[in-house]
C-alpha cells in the first residue's frame, strides 16, 4: 500500500516536471516563430514548412543520386587494377576527381542526406514541443519514426557503396551485429551480404537496398500524409534557394573525399564517424552486442509508441457534434477539415437533403475549423459554445 502511494507520488512529480518542460519548450518555439515572422513574415518562415524541408532534400537526393548512379560501378574486384579495371571505389574516384562537377554533385548528395536527417529531427522536436504528435495524429508520428529509421539505414548503405576502408569496416561490423542476433541473425546476414561472404553481389545488394528503399520512402510518405487534407509539402522558392545554397556552401567548405580502397585481406580499425548516420556504429563499438540490440530496439519501439503513453499535457479532445436538423449536407465542413475527420453519409430517411455530415471521433482534433466553415450553424464544439467564441473574439479585438 505504502509503495503504491510512493509510486503515484513519483509519477505525479514526473508528470509535473514533464508538463513544465513541454510548456516551456512550446513557449520558446512559438516565441522563435514570432520573432522570425516579424523579420521575414509568416510566408517565408521555415517553421511553417518544417515537414516540407526534409522532403525538399529528398528530391535533391533523388536528382543528385540519379547523376551518381549513371557512373557508379557496384563491384569490389581489385585484382586487375593495373589493367584499369573499374570497381566501386575507382568509379567513385572517377566521379569525384574526373567527371565535370562530379565532386560537387557527390558533395550535394552526401550533405543533403545529412541535412535531411537534421531537419527530420527538428521537425520531430517541433511537433513534440507543440504537442502535435498524438491522439488523432498518431499515424503521422508512427510513420515519421519509420521514415527516420529508413532514412538512417539508406544513408548507411550509402557509406558502404563508396567501398573504401571505412565501407569495409562498417560492412564487417554490420555482419557481426547481425550474427549476434538469435534465430534471424543467420538469414539476415545472408540477405545483407547476398551470400556467405563479401563478393561483387554484396555491393549490388547494397546498391539495390540504397535505391530500392529510397523509392519505398515514397510509399511511407503517402502513409505519413494519408490523414492530412492539405499537407504542406513544398516550401516557397526563396526558402528552397536558401536550402540549396547552404548545401553548396558546405560542399565548398568541406569538399567530399574517400579513404583508401577497401582491401579484403586487411582489417581497418578506425574511421571518421558521421554523427548523422553512423552514431549506431559508434555505440556498437562501445557496448556488448546484446546491449546494443536491446537498446536500439527499445529506442525505436519506444519512439514509435510514444503517442499512446504521453497523455498529460493537453486536455482530452472533445469531438465536434453535428446538429442533424440544421445540416444541409453542403460538404463545406468536409472540405475544410484538415484531418479528414468529417465524413459525408446519406441523410436519414425523411430528410430534405441528400447528405449528412458525421464526425469520425478518433480523427477529430476539436480545432473548430468545421464550426467556422458551416454556414448553417449545424456543427458545434460541445465545450465551446458560439457565445463563448464570440466573447473571446471581442475581447481579443479590444486588446488589439
Amino acid at each position, binding site marked *: 500500500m505504502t509503495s503504491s502511494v510512493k509510486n503515484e507520488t513519483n509519477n505525479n512529480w514526473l508528470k509535473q516536471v514533464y508538463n513544465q518542460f513541454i510548456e516551456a519548450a512550446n513557449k520558446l518555439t512559438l516565441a522563435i516563430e514570432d520573432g522570425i515572422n516579424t523579420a*521575414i*513574415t509568416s510566408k517565408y518562415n521555415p517553421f511553417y514548412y518544417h515537414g516540407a524541408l526534409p522532403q525538399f532534400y529528398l528530391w535533391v537526393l533523388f536528382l543528385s543520386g540519379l547523376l551518381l548512379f549513371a557512373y557508379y560501378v557496384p563491384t569490389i574486384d581489385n585484382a586487375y587494377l593495373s589493367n584499369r579495371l573499374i570497381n566501386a571505389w575507382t568509379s567513385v574516384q572517377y566521379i569525384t576527381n574526373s567527371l565535370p*562537377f562530379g565532386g*560537387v554533385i557527390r558533395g550535394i548528395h552526401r550533405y543533403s542526406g545529412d541535412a535531411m536527417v537534421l531537419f527530420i529531427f527538428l521537425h520531430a522536436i517541433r511537433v513534440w514541443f507543440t504537442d502535435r504528435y498524438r491522439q488523432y495524429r498518431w499515424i503521422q508520428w508512427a510513420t515519421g519514426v519509420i521514415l527516420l529509421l529508413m532514412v538512417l539505414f539508406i544513408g548507411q548503405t550509402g557509406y558502404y557503396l563508396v567501398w573504401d576502408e571505412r565501407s569495409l569496416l562498417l560492412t564487417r561490423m554490420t555482419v557481426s551485429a547481425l550474427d549476434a542476433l538469435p534465430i534471424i541473425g543467420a538469414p539476415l546476414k545472408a540477405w545483407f551480404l547476398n551470400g556467405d561472404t563479401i563478393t561483387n553481389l554484396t555491393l549490388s545488394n547494397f546498391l539495390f537496398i540504397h535505391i530500392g528503399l529510397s523509392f519505398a520512402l515514397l510509399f511511407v510518405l503517402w502513409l505519413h500524409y494519408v490523414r492530412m487534407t492539405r499537407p504542406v509539402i513544398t516550401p516557397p522558392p*526563396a526558402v528552397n534557394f536558401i536550402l540549396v545554397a547552404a548545401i*553548396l556552401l558546405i560542399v*565548398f567548405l568541406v569538399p567530399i573525399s574517400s579513404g583508401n580502397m577497401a582491401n579484403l585481406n586487411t582489417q581497418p580499425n578506425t574511421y571518421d564517424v558521421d554523427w548523422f548516420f553512423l552514431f549506431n556504429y559508434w555505440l556498437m563499438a562501445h557496448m556488448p552486442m546484446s546491449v546494443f540490440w536491446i537498446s536500439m530496439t527499445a529506442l525505436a519501439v519506444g519512439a514509435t509508441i510514444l503517442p499512446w503513453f504521453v497523455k498529460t499535457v493537453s486536455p482530452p479532445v472533445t469531438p465536434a457534434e453535428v446538429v442533424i436538423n440544421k445540416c444541409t449536407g453542403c460538404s463545406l465542413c468536409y472540405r475544410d477539415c484538415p484531418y479528414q475527420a468529417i465524413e459525408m453519409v446519406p441523410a436519414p430517411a425523411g430528410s430534405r437533403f441528400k447528405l449528412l455530415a458525421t464526425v469520425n471521433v478518433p480523427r477529430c482534433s476539436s480545432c473548430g475549423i468545421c464550426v467556422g466553415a458551416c454556414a448553417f450553424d449545424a456543427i458545434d464544439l460541445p465545450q465551446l459554445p458560439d457565445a463563448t467564441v464570440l466573447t473571446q473574439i471581442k475581447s481579443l479585438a479590444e486588446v488589439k
Partner: protein
Amino acid sequence: MIKGIKDIVILILAALCLIVSLVFMPWSELNFTGNFPGWLSGVMGHFGVNKFFADLATHNKLMELVTPKDVQTNLGDYAYSLFLFVAMTASAIAIVLIGKEDDSEKTVLEAKK
C-alpha cells in the same frame, strides 16, 4: 520608382546576382581562364572578356578565397558552387524582401463604397 532603402537593397542584390552569374560563374566553369570553347572564343575575344577572365586569376586574394582546401582537381567546380551559393542567397533575400509585401492585406476597405 525607388521608394526607400528596401528597394535599393533589392537592386543591389539583383545586381550582385547578375554579376556573379554572368562573370564569376562562367569564370570558374572555365577553370579561372578565359579559354572559351572554339565557337565562342572569337566573340568573347572581340569584347575582351577572355582577357578580363584571365586577369581575374592574377588576383591572389580572390584566388585564395575561391579555392577549397584539401582538393587538388576540378577547383573551378567548387568555386562554381561557392558562386552559385552567393547568387542563390542574394536572390532568395531579394525575393523575401519583395514578397513580404504580399503578406499585407490589400482587400480591406475603410468603408463600403
